[in-house]
């Protein structure tokens, strides 16, 4: 049973990954990405990481892909990719590099065996504690400080996104008689007025 689920979703994950790369339209790439992300969530369930599977579906397949689709629709850049290649050798070289990367990964997997310190942060499978409780216990004891830093990172990301995407943010050309920093303390009506 587990084998059947694994094989089906492994094929789905790889087909989705191929679809992301090979689709001409960005929307099709995004939908293929959903397929891959969902398959990875199924792999998480198969390996007992139930909490991460839920987070994967909510954050990745939910929020991030929606954000991608939102940007695609908002900017109206859903035109097909241009085919002319300024560097003619780039495509075959890229494929060769990718295959070499895969060969290297397999070689490392063949030569080295995974070791690690004994499970000092708690076991992942032993006992009958639920997976969510295991993750929470580790997260709020051993990893409490990184967890708090994470909240700062999210706040910084939100502020950065607002600053970058704001109309009249960095990257706008200055009009005549305008100086750097001017306009940022004026309302959006003034900015619109300046653009006209």
């Amino acid at each position, binding site marked *: 049973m587990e*084998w059947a689920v694994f094989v089906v979703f*492994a094929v789905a994950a790889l087909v989705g990954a191929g679809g992301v790369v090979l689709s001409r339209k960005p929307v099709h790439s995004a939908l293929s990405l959903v397929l891959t992300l969902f398959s990875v969530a199924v792999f998480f369930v198969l390996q007992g990481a139930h909490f991460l599977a839920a987070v994967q579906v909510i954050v990745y397949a939910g929020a991030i892909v929606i954000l991608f689709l939102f940007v695609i629709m908002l900017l109206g850049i859903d035109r097909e990719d241009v085919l002319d290649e300024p560097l003619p050798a780039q495509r075959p070289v890229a494929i060769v590099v990718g295959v070499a990367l895969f060969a290297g990964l397999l070689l490392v997997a063949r030569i080295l065996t995974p070791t690690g310190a004994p499970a000092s942060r708690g076991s992942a499978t032993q006992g009958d504690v639920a997976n969510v409780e295991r993750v929470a216990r580790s997260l709020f004891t051993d990893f409490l400080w990184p967890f708090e830093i994470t909240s700062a990172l999210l706040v910084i990301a939100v502020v950065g996104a607002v600053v970058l995407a704001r109309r009249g943010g960095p990257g706008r050309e200055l009009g005549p008689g305008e100086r750097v920093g001017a306009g940022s303390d004026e309302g959006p009506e003034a900015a619109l007025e300046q653009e006209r």
Partner: protein
Amino acid sequence: MNVPGSYYLTVAALMFCIGAIGLLVRRNALVMFMCVELMLNAVNLTFVTFARMLDDIGGQVFVFFTLVVAAAEVVIGLALIVSIFRRRQGATADDVSLLKG
């Protein structure tokens, strides 16, 4: 009967390499971003697989942090893409060559 961890690792390696090839081949900035997400997910799958193989919950907690960083990265990256595309209509990474010598 459990699927051995090496099978998951192989799938993850394949996903990572497909993402890397896509990042090198595609020129649409959004699709390049999706390929980065693909590679991040492959690494997450590797983390969870090793967490099971080595029986250590630390791998799963690390995936949690990776998810947060990936979300922040996507937010900033898409804001950059929006602010670039608002100025110029080009949809490819080659159009952003202002600093090229």
